[in-house]
């Protein structure tokens, strides 16, 4: 009940923190899509490169987020950006790489070799083959990777408040430091709700982007 009153009384602040949170994740995921999909496509050309890249991306995933934020502080301090928005975005981009790269790579590798052969035989260039055949067929799986990355980033972004990046994590960190259960629950609820909404929204997007010929 107390929490409920707190939420009602602080709606404008909650909204502002939510927008911060969304902006943080959106920028990170947008960059991660560009880099991740590109890398995922490039490594389909070489098994060795693919193994290495996927290994590195998997290692990054295992670094605890708080440790990664810590690691970025001395590096980015060199350009005076040790804490705040920039290190948070960079860390989120790194975490989003693995699901996006892996799904892009797997989806393209799984395109039926007969389709690739037909595309080449009919006179498509490599880029046309990618645009007309491989990417449209891989798209549902790639969007699935993006969904994973977004949900993951929404959770990790909550920790970014410790390096001053704002967002919904602020309620959680203050809730802990001030032993204020209302703020803690508010933050946790908001982060969960945001993750669920984003997940469903992307699921809808995935369905929308999938060619009817590829739907089950």
């Amino acid at each position, binding site marked *: 009940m107390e929490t409920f009153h707190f939420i009602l009384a602080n709606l404008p602040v909650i909204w502002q923190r939510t927008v911060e949170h969304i902006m943080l994740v959106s920028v990170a995921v947008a960059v991660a899509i560009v880099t991740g999909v590109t890398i995922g496509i490039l490594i389909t050309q070489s098994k060795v490169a693919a193994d290495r890249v996927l290994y590195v991306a998997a290692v990054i995933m295992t670094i605890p987020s708080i440790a990664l934020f810590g690691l970025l502080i001395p590096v980015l301090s060199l350009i005076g950006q040790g804490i705040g928005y920039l290190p948070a975005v960079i860390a989120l981009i790194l975490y989003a790489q693995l699901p996006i790269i892996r799904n892009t790579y797997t989806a393209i590798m799984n395109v*039926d*070799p*007969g*389709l690739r*052969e*037909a*595309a*080449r*035989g*009919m*006179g*498509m*260039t490599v880029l*046309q083959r990618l645009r*007309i*055949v491989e990417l*449209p*067929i891989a798209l549902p799986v790639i969007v699935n990777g993006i969904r994973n990355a977004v949900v993951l980033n929404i959770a990790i972004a909550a920790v970014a408040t410790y390096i001053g990046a704002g967002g919904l994590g602020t309620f959680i960190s203050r809730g802990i430091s001030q032993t204020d259960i209302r703020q803690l629950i508010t933050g946790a609820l908001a982060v969960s709700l945001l993750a669920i909404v984003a997940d469903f929204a992307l699921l809808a997007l995935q369905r929308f982007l999938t*060619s*009817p*010929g*590829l739907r089950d």
Partner: protein
Amino acid sequence: MIRLERLTKTFGTVTAVDHVDMDVPDGAVCVLLGPSGCGKTTTMKMINRLIPPTSGKIYLNGRDTAGVNEVELRRSIGYVIQQIGLFPNKTVEDNICVVPDLLGWDRKKSRARAADLLAMVNLEPATFLKRYPKELSGGQQQRVGVIRALAADPPVLLMDEPFGAIDPINREVIQDEFMKLQAELKKTIVFVSHDIDEAVKMASLIAIFRDGRLIQFDTPDMILANPIDSFVADFVGGDRTLKRLRLVKVADAMMSDPPRVTAEDSLDTAAAKMEEHGHISIVMVGPRGRARGMIRIEDAKTKKGLVGEHVEPLPGMIRVDNDLRNAVSMMFSHGATWLACVDDDGFYKGYVTQRGITRLLGANYRA
């Protein structure tokens, strides 16, 4: 015309295709035939440079393809593969229009052509244009695969075991459909197969490969009649004579301009005609020349009267445009040693005998 000159492909130390020379005239269906690993597929794929030749030349209508951009080259050659390779994310219509779209054709024109092509393979355009490949049966998919290769109206078609993945019954149907289409379109086709029956049925020329070499290149009938060595003989099969029956038309095996009688002739006339030709029976025709029945020599000699009073039914009639396989089959099923041959309107044109067929098929072996 497609001309291959000393075409060679080596992979490391392995020679996959070894100095192949070949001329495929316009409008011919050339089937490349041989066991797996014989170089037939590699040879075909060098024509559209999916595999670059190690040495040798390929000319399409006199033009050396080495000087042509490979993407442009492929767009000017139809390509059909066994896996069909329809793009699952595109409708049937868009699949058919892939090459026209790559070539930048007007959309209206290419879509109209897609509908025409579907109709040509007996798929109702209104039903199928907007469907996706997964909504089609295997046979329907392969029909679309074939017309997709024809969409930009290329003069040359490459087909890599196109009907190999289709069940035997549907395969026959699609082969027949395709031959009908080809009779109309007269494309120059290079067709890879490992199925001698398919080759005999479809080919105007058969090229038999072994270990990367072209060992015999001739018409199906010549290959069946005169295999160049024991490998070819084994490959075409112990029943090659039976296979030839399919290739020879009744018209080519029959004795034409045969003696005949009418119902009003006397039996004496009939007997005289038979003796003159050394026959033991003679066909009776109607007033305008349609085959109606027959008279045996023993009846003609022992009985009196007119032919019309003693006529017996014919042992069997076959149309001149049928092949000898039908003729032999009819002889066996009717227990006959000869058949009367008639044209589409039933006019008597000649006769075929078992002995005549045997002699015809035997003559080529001795030649």
